[in-house]
């Protein structure tokens, strides 16, 4: 089989919502429209295992960046990021063009925005449905950028807008992302087609 010259590294839940925390999944499995687009366009797809699932598990709370930003979780993300960067380097040596697609707003995989609230912690309390969204990156994305930069790898990076992966009550009203599902999908498709 002929190798693709375009390789996209995706965060896990883009193809499998079953690794998401309870209460924030708008798809049964993959974002089907994006799954079809990637294969129709001939991308080779590399799916990065969900760092949150393998560290905290499937029965996890909604977290903020501060809750994940611990020594142990950073080490976990760094180890995975190094393994991802090594694979990206192998594809780069074979002449492939590299892309990364994270998950907007995720405290782990967000690129343009993440969720941050330093008051979360200690005795559990009811949090608002609206996300504590701030401009910033998730913990894994920071470690991945570092690992890619150390290897000098040219990777075009984006994240899927929250409107494609979160229920309406988790979509930030302000910020860089489109706020409807069609616009969110169009944005990532345009990025990958450019």
């Amino acid at each position, binding site marked *: *089989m002929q190798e*693709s010259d375009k390789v996209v590294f995706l965060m*896990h839940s883009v*193809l*499998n*919502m*079953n*690794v*998401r925390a*309870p*209460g*924030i*999944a*708008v*798809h*049964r*499995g*993959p974002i*089907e429209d994006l*799954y079809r687009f990637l*294969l129709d366009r001939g991308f*080779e*797809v*590399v*799916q990065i*295992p*969900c760092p949150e*699932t*393998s560290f905290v*598990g*499937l*029965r996890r709370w909604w977290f903020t960046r501060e809750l994940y930003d611990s020594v142990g979780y950073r080490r976990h993300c760094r*180890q*995975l990021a*190094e*393994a991802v960067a*090594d*694979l990206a380097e*192998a*594809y780069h040596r074979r002449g492939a063009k590299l892309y990364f697609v994270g998950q907007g707003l995720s405290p782990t995989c967000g690129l343009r925005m993440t969720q941050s609230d330093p008051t979360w912690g200690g005795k559990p309390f*009811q949090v608002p449905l609206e996300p504590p969204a701030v401009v910033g990156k998730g913990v894994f994305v920071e470690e991945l950028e570092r690992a890619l930069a150390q290897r000098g790898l040219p990777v075009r990076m984006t994240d899927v807008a929250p409107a494609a992966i979160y*229920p309406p*009550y988790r979509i930030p009203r302000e910020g860089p992302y489109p706020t409807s599902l069609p616009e969110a999908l169009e944005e990532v498709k345009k990025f990958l087609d450019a």
Partner: protein
Amino acid sequence: MRELDFLDRRSRRTLLLSGATLRRHRDVVDRWVEEGYGLTLVPRLELLGTSASAHTWVQALCDTVEEMVRHQHTVVALRAAEDPDLDKVLQALAQRQVKIPVRPCTSGKEADP
């Protein structure tokens, strides 16, 4: 607030397969996706040889699958005739005594969900 108060469309069904199988047998995988299965892909591990990074990939995938099984998700492996990448993960799962059904990826009905 309970989980049921929120939108949660997770199917709790996952198809484990190699990226190579996805590229070669997309028509088969499409049928699993239509049935609501999410995909968990094993990358081309041969590009990493026997490095520590290859080990990290395998263990991260096993952690994910084991966590799904522990939470009573349905996880099915779809195995092509020559599937060395998937085999590495299946062997590591067996070492952990995590059991999942393995379906042959053929052109026949046995590959369907």
